[in-house]
């Protein structure tokens, strides 16, 4: 039985450490905020220019001047600070963010990531994804294990245009978790969703990875 979006997010949340500064992408990554362990100090960065993102506002308390990188209304915390997008990406590119959780279209077994463009389809732009993978200390990707037609998304090499080369440290899908010790090492299978067999995983994955 594949993990749900929430279960994937909860597994990504296991990457969090006390005192971390974290950037969460749009989609499943945003859900990770719901699984920050109680009592753990984690500061969420929004790349448009904010540290210390609070939860979504109560109805009637939305502030048009206070949005996250997904353009959603959010709230501030006592410790929040605002800054320009240039300063924000200085923070990101300069290696000051501990962890980024991002979605993906494809992940290569070499750690390459593709998540912004499908040739022939309308291109919306990369936003801040290329800066995040280039600058953040640790990059965790969350995605569905296969595309809708059943083809593998964790593959020997990405076929879609890249977002970054050799940038993924951990991959969490609805079927399994893969990780690597550092960016010179291959991925290793860490864990599988309940009911997923090693054989099934192999048939749904074209990337090579080490056994658990």
């Amino acid at each position, binding site marked *: 039985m594949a993990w749900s979006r929430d279960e994937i997010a909860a597994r990504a949340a296991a990457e969090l450490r006390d005192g971390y500064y974290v950037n969460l992408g749009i989609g499943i990554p945003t859900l990770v905020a719901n699984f920050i362990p109680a009592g753990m100090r984690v500061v969420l960065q929004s790349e448009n220019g904010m540290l210390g993102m609070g939860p979504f506002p109560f109805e009637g308390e939305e502030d048009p001047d206070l949005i996250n990188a997904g353009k959603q209304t959010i709230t501030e915390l006592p410790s929040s600070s605002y800054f320009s*997008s240039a300063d924000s990406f200085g923070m990101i590119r300069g290696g000051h963010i501990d962890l980024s959780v991002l979605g993906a279209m494809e992940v290569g077994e070499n750690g390459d990531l593709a998540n912004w463009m499908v040739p022939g389809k*309308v291109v919306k732009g990369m936003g801040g994804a290329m800066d995040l993978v280039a600058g953040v200390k640790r990059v965790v990707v969350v995605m569905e294990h296969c595309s809708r037609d059943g083809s593998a998304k964790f593959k020997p090499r990405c076929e879609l245009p890249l977002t970054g080369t050799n940038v993924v440290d951990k991959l969490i899908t609805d079927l399994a978790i893969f990780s690597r010790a550092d960016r010179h090492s291959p991925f290793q299978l860490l864990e599988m969703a309940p009911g997923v067999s090693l054989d099934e995983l192999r048939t749904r994955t074209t990337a090579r990875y080490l056994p658990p």
Partner: protein
Amino acid sequence: MSLPTGPKVYATAASALAGVVRDNITVMSGGFGLCGIAENLIVALRDSGVKGLTVVSNNAGVDEYGLGMLLKTRQIRKMISSYVGENKEFERQYLSGELELEFNPQGTLAERIRAGGAGIWGFYTRTGAGTLVAEGKEQRVVDGETWVLEKGLVADLSIVKAWRGDTEGNLIYRKTARNFNPMMATAGRVTVAEVEKLVEPGELAPDQIHTPGIFVQRIIQGPAYRRQIENRTIRKRPAAGVS
């Protein structure tokens, strides 16, 4: 109640753009999504009838609001942006070849604008190395790390929006409406600012000013602000009860 006056203060958005706006110029437009956009100046830009604009803006507005209004009237020839997903008319014009588009990673775009305003011809960033973004650009490898050369950007005109401004052009932004506005204010040959409230010098604390007045040549108090929300997201209030 009369507004503060001064040599930089203009009565209307139209008058603040007069003499600066010409066909085929490059315009930087502050804001992220619909947050912190110069809404009155965008309307005035549309109403000026100017054509062939190159617009530097992180996003392209929505169909009926922000830069989307200038797309609808086909006044924009080229966009330099990082993400334009919110706009159907944009998609149509782009696919039909009417609109030229240059994508920059968001941080690279922000830094190119800062560099342009700060007299930096170019800089080396890791962002985009090994991707389409780096194609055709100079790259250098230092200790195994690849760096891409990106160039500073300047504009003929920058339009920015702030929360408060004084007659000297000093600006204070509010919350995440700051975004691209401070760098764009530095990178316009002429920068026109609109503010929700225009005040006299001395009403803004010198330590709290985000954009010093030197960067702002013209300023208006916007007559009204829609401050439209693009993606209203809320959470449930906890059930009322005896606490």
